[in-house]
Structures are given as structure tokens and as C-alpha cells.
């Protein structure tokens, strides 16, 4: 936009975000989340804010938007586009700073796409003519015009997140803050979203700040990066260093691979076997699983990969015995099965983490000592008294995993076990799975996280169109793949 460039040059001296000596602690907590940090993001930047879960990334971002800032003690100053955030009222803040949240499901407010796009502008009292123009423009920019009249409930996760981005940008904010925007998306949807975000940055000149614990896919778009550790922020000098594939294993992981080589060759029993399996959810529904043959070897980690809606989760439900095949056969070696759904919150009922683990104690015959040990094993020692919802996403996943492991299943079925988890939590999940595998438990996991799959799985099946496109050992699988690789 050449007309605006002069104006922007004059304003360029004003940073998009500037924090000076900023400290913040949550009400009731002694520890400071942010400790006397100073941070400056120039206008027109595409900045990454990296750091593990709980490092305060979200807190720092939300402090830039007073209406969603958490309750607590703040000292120091924070300015957005040259004006202190306290001076921004709800309307001014919505106009100047856009905020996209992590969960596409939760941030959609309205029942239809057009209304979702209009929601912000309606709140701001934008005159109808202008509103219609802005919405039309934004819809064309994001290619929403094809599904403009759809119900939001029918959209895929990727589209929902794209809609959330569009619904924020329709208010024409100059600064866009995103908190883990792609953590809940599959790799293809993630690329689509990032591409749209890149266009927003490049074509609209919007300043973009993305908080993420997994910067790899975004590094190519970024102009600068900052790392938040222990409440302090420091610029990342070498952006390329963020591209490295994180290692999930520990030292004894290397020789595990060799050990696996031997038992792999000997004939193994099958933990689960599907033969000519057909499944659909209803008489009028299409087949989700069609004529599928699949064998999961006992005592191994078997990964199911494939796009959204290819039938991975259905396959797990079938193996768990939640759903029954219409035709064909499914045989499981043991009835001791456990299913961990994508969202671990489906399991949580108790007030504290320890009570949570004790829920099935009488029936599964284990005592409090076992439960405490289980907590310790997943690195949650000391969290016994915390409410499950007060744990971070990664800790919730580990707690749910520990709860299921106490049932002593022989077959563990995991749906996206690392979705939205940071590297530390993924390492802990990996360690827990390795320990299980050493005990001879069979693990089947559906995952989009190809990093994790590559480093953890013994065998990988690619599910496509209700069938298994191929099953291969991990090495073979990734050697043969052209597109589908980490």
C-alpha cells in the first residue's frame, strides 16, 4: 500500500510494543511470572516469542490487552503503538490490538461464519456500510466467501482457526498477537494458517507476534525472535537455531533401537488384528473404515498417521471396543485396554491430582502408595494437592496417562498424545511410553506429530480414505515418504 507508506515511515520510530521493567505475579502466587523484563517489538515485525509451557508467554501477550489481562500485581510500563495500555479502553484496544487464542473451538462465539466475522465490528458500533465493505474484503482475502454462510459448528479445526484470524483482522488492528495459534491443528492446516498469517504480515503490514513452544514451522516467516526463560526475555540472535528438530529421547534411547532390532525379526504375536474390517457410524453414513487389514504387533509402539477425518480416531475407538465393526473381524489379545482421548479433561473428575488417580483404586486394586508412585514416574511429584485443571496442558496429559496406566492395561490407545505440548512435556510423555513398552505393553497412537512419531514408533501405518495405505517400520516409512515427513 504505497499511499500509507509515508505515514508508516513517520510512525516507524514508535515501536509496536514496548515493555519497560515489567514484572508480573499472579494474585496469591509468590513467584513472579515476569521479572523486570524490557521488550521492544518494532512495527512491521513478525516476531516469535518462544519458551516452554508456563514460561509466561501468554501472560506477557495478554498484558498487552488490558481487557483480558490476568488478575495480579504488575509493575513497570507496557506501551502499544506508543500509548500505555491502561489508556486503551475496550473499543480502542479491539481496534489496535488483535488477539488470537489457542483453541479454535472456544474462541468462536457465533453460530454462523458471517456473524462471527461481524461480531467484533458490531460490538464496536461500526456503521453498516463500512462493516459490509470490511467483511467483504476480509472474506475475499482469506477465501472465506465460499463458506461464508456455513454454520461454524460444521467447520474443520483449521477453518475455525482461520475464521478466528479473519474475525480479528476485520477490525483492522495494527498489532496482532497470537497465542499458540497452531497447537491444535494438524500439519497441513498449520501450514495453511501460517501462510495466511504470512500474507497478513506481508501484504497488510500488520505487526505480528506469535507465542509458541514449537517455532520450527514458523521460522521461515519470522523477522525476529525472543526467548522467555524464568521471567526474563532475550532476543534470539540466530533464527536458524530455532529450526533444529528437538530430540525427545534420553541417553539409553540409542541402544534401545538396537535391542529392538532383534525381537523385531522374530515372529511376534499380534496384539490387535483387523481383518477385512468395515465400519460406518450409521446406515446412511459413508464407510469410515473400508475393507481394512491391520496387524499391531504385541509389545511395540504402533503409530497411525494421516490427515484429518481419515479414520484414525475411529480406528482407536474400534480397537478399544467402543464401536463395533459392521463386517469383518477384530481380535484383541487382551481385554485389558485403555483409551486416552485427545483431550485429557474427558477423564478428570476429582478435586486433586491424587484423588484423580485414586478414582479407580477399589476396582482396579491398587492403593495410595501406587498412585503416589505413578505421579512421581510422570514427573508430577509435588502436584498431589493441585486441581487437575490448574495443571498445564502437558501435565494434564501426563496425569491422564498415569491414571490409565494404573489400570495395568496391556493395550494402550492414545489419540494425539502430544497435541499442544511443549518439548519438555513431550519428552516426559515419550519417557512414559518407553517405560510402558519395556513392560511389554502395546501402544497404538494416532498422531500428527511426525517428530514424535519418528522418534518413538516402531511401526507406522498411514491411514488414507478408510484404508491402510502402507505399514512399515519407522525408518523404512520415512525413507519412502516424499511429502509426509517431519
Amino acid at each position, binding site marked *: 500500500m504505497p499511499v500509507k507508506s509515508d505515514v508508516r515511515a513517520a510512525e516507524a520510530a514508535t515501536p509496536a510494543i514496548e515493555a519497560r521493567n515489567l514484572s508480573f505475579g499472579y494474585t496469591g502466587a509468590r513467584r513472579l511470572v515476569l521479572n523486570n523484563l524490557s521488550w521492544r517489538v518494532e512495527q512491521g515485525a513478525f516476531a516469535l516469542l518462544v519458551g516452554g509451557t508456563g514460561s509466561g508467554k501468554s501472560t506477557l501477550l495478554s498484558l498487552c490487552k488490558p481487557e483480558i489481562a490476568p488478575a495480579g500485581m504488575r509493575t513497570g510500563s507496557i506501551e502499544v503503538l506508543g500509548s500505555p495500555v491502561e489508556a486503551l479502553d475496550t473499543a480502542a484496544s479491539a481496534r489496535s490490538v488483535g488477539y488470537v487464542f489457542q483453541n479454535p473451538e472456544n474462541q468462536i462465539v457465533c453460530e454462523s461464519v458471517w456473524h462471527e466475522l461481524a461480531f467484533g465490528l458490531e460490538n464496536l458500533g461500526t456503521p453498516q456500510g463500512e462493516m459490509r465493505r470490511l467483511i467483504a474484503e476480509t472474506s475475499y482475502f482469506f477465501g472465506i466467501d465460499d463458506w461464508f454462510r456455513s454454520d461454524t459448528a460444521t467447520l474443520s479445526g483449521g477453518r475455525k482457526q482461520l475464521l478466528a484470524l479473519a474475525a480479528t483482522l476485520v477490525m483492522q488492528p495494527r498489532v496482532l498477537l497470537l497465542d499458540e495459534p497452531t497447537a491444535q491443528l494438524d500439519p497441513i492446516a498449520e501450514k495453511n494458517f501460517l501462510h495466511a498469517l504470512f500474507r497478513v504480515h506481508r501484504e497488510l503490514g500488520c505487526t505480528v507476534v506469535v507465542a509458541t513452544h514449537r517455532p520450527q514451522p514458523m521460522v521461515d516467516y519470522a523477522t525476529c525472535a525472543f526467548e522467555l526463560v524464568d521471567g526474563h526475555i532475550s532476543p534470539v540472535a540466530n533464527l536458524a537455531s530455532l529450526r533444529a528438530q528437538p530430540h525427545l529421547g534420553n541417553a539409553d534411547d540409542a541402544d534401545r533401537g538396537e535391542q529392538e532390532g532383534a525381537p523385531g525379526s522374530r515372529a511376534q504375536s499380534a496384539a490387535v488384528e483387523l481383518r477385512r474390517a468395515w465400519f460406518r457410524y450409521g446406515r446412511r453414513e459413508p464407510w469410515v473404515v473400508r475393507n481394512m487389514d491391520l496387524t499391531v504387533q504385541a509389545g511395540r509402539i504402533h503409530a497411525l498417521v494421516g490427515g484429518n477425518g481419515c479414520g484414525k480416531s475411529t480406528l482407536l475407538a474400534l480397537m478399544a471396543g467402543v464401536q463395533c465393526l459392521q463386517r469383518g473381524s477384530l481380535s484383541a489379545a487382551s481385554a485389558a*485396554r485403555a483409551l486416552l482421548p485427545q483431550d485429557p479433561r474427558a477423564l478428570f473428575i476429582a478435586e486433586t491430582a491424587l484423588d484423580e488417580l485414586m478414582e479407580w483404586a477399589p476396582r482396579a486394586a491398587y492403593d495410595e502408595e501406587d498412585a503416589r508412585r505413578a505421579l512421581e514416574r510422570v514427573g508430577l511429584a509435588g502436584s498431589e494437592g493441585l486441581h487437575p485443571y490448574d495443571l498445564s496442558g502437558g501435565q494434564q496429559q501426563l496425569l491422564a496417562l498415569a491414571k490409565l496406566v494404573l489400570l495395568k492395561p496391556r493395550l494402550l490407545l492414545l489419540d494425539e498424545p502430544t497435541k499442544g505440548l511443549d518439548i519438555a512435556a513431550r519428552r516426559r510423555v515419550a519417557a512414559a511410553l518407553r517405560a510402558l513398552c519395556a513392560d511389554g505393553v502395546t501402544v497404538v497412537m494416532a498422531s500428527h506429530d511426525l517428530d514424535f512419531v519418528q522418534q518413538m514408533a516402531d511401526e507406522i501405518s498411514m491411514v488414507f480414505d478408510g484404508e491402510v495405505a502402507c505399514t512399515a517400520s519407522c525408518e523404512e516409512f520415512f525413507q519412502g515418504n516424499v511429502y509426509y515427513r517431519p
Partner: protein
Amino acid sequence: MRAERHTAFDTAHPLVPAVYTVLTVSFTMFAFQPVLIMISLAGGLLYACVCDGPRAAAMSLRWQLPLMIIVALINPLFSASGSTELFRLGPRAVYLESLCYGCAMGGLFAASVLWFRAATHLVPFDRVMALAGNAAPTIALMTSMSMRLIPRFMRQGKLVAAVQDVAAACVGQGQAARSGARDAVAGRLRLSTVLMGWTMEDSLETADAMRARGWHAGVRRTVYTRFRFTALDALRIIVLVLAGCLCAAIAAAATGQYAFYPRMSELVPWWGYAPYAAWMLVPTVLHVREEARCQ
């Protein structure tokens, strides 16, 4: 995804079908006279046929018909009035008048259900929301959010139950499968506890997302939807209201003249039934015309 459908009043301002629907449902519920009930029932049934197809309309009658019969049969047991005794059931007499009254009651009930269903076609939910959104945005938004919550609750509930069942099967191997009402109640309670926690947690983020986009910004809200209220719409409403007045007069006259007890009044051919029937046929005629135009 909901398919875009062309229905009667498709191109009119939503106030037009709303006026028609409100008037029709009131006529149906208040005009308690056999012929008028029959006309309304026929009109509702015909519209259901052209809208959903005869098969679907017949399917919906599958549960309405037994209900009609039950209402018809129960009435004589409760109201022992009338003059034509049919037979005696123990100490109570069953009268023809009372039986007919029950039939009329059942017919009225079925017709009302049909017209309420028709209302969802004539005034689609999103249009109601759009209209309501102009007048009472908070209530409209709350309603639409609650509506979206129901399928989500169902989905999450199924998942929670599935996980629980798998876990129960896992520990229950070798033992007898868990059973008994107490376990079932405990299971349901558990389900609602899990869902509550989950939903509350999610709604916190939704609230933040709303605030981040200027909800309660303290300015007068504007609206996106542009329902142009044209002169034609005004004309349509005037015509509807005038015709509605005529039908109301007809209904009042017919209902006032007719009595079930002690002896049913005689039904005679009357010019007033014709405009009433025409009124009940309006959506059917419009729908058929609209369909013909589309092709």
C-alpha cells in the same frame, strides 16, 4: 451442513412470515370448531408434504396419530357430559359428544404441532436470531451459544462415557460386568461432573475471546444483517393483517355458534370456510410457486 433451501417467503423481510406464522398458530389453537380444525390440519399437513416430502410428513404422523387417538379416548373418561349415551364403562357413561370433543382436541393438538414445525421452515432460526440480535443482542447471543452447546455436550458426553466404559472393561476382566442401578446413577453423575468442569473451563476462554473483540465496548452496537423493509413488505403485512382480521372474525363466528354440549350443533355449508381454507394454504401455494420458479 444445512442446505440452502428455498421456501415460502424466502425473499421477504422476516417480519412477513413471522406475522403469518403467529396468526396461523393462534387461529389453530383458539378456533375450536370441527371444520376449522380440519382445515387447519389439512393446511399444515399439506405444507409438511411439500416441504419435507409426503414420506417424511407421514413419518411425523406416526407418533402424532396415536397421541390424537389417546387424547380422543381419554376425554370421555374425564368429562361425562353430553346427551347421546354410547355405552357404559362401569359406573360412567360414555357420550358421543364427549368422544367427538376429544377427537377435535386431538386434531387441534396435531395441527398445532404441524404448524410449529412449519414455523421453523417459514422463519428459519438464523433469521430469528438476526432479527432478535437487533433488538436484544445479549439474549440473542446467549440463546445461540446455548444452542451450540447442546451438540457439543452430546459429543463430549459420549467421549467421557466411552473412556469410562473402556476403563471399566479393563479392570472388570474376569469379574462380572458391572451392573445395577447404583452404578448407572453413579456413572451419570460422574459424566455430568466431568462435563461441568470441562465446559466451565472452556467458557472462560470464550469470554476472553469475546472481550478481546470489543464485547461490551460501551458503544451502541450496529448490525451486519440488512433486512430491507420495502414498501412491498409493508404491503404484504397490511394484506396479511387484513386477511387475518377476516379469518379471526370467521373463526370467532364459527366457534361462537358451535357447541359440543349438551348436543353438538349441526354443521352446515358456509361461505366463511373458503377464505379460512385459503389462508391455511398460503405457504403451500407460495412454496410450490417458488419451486416452480427455481427450476
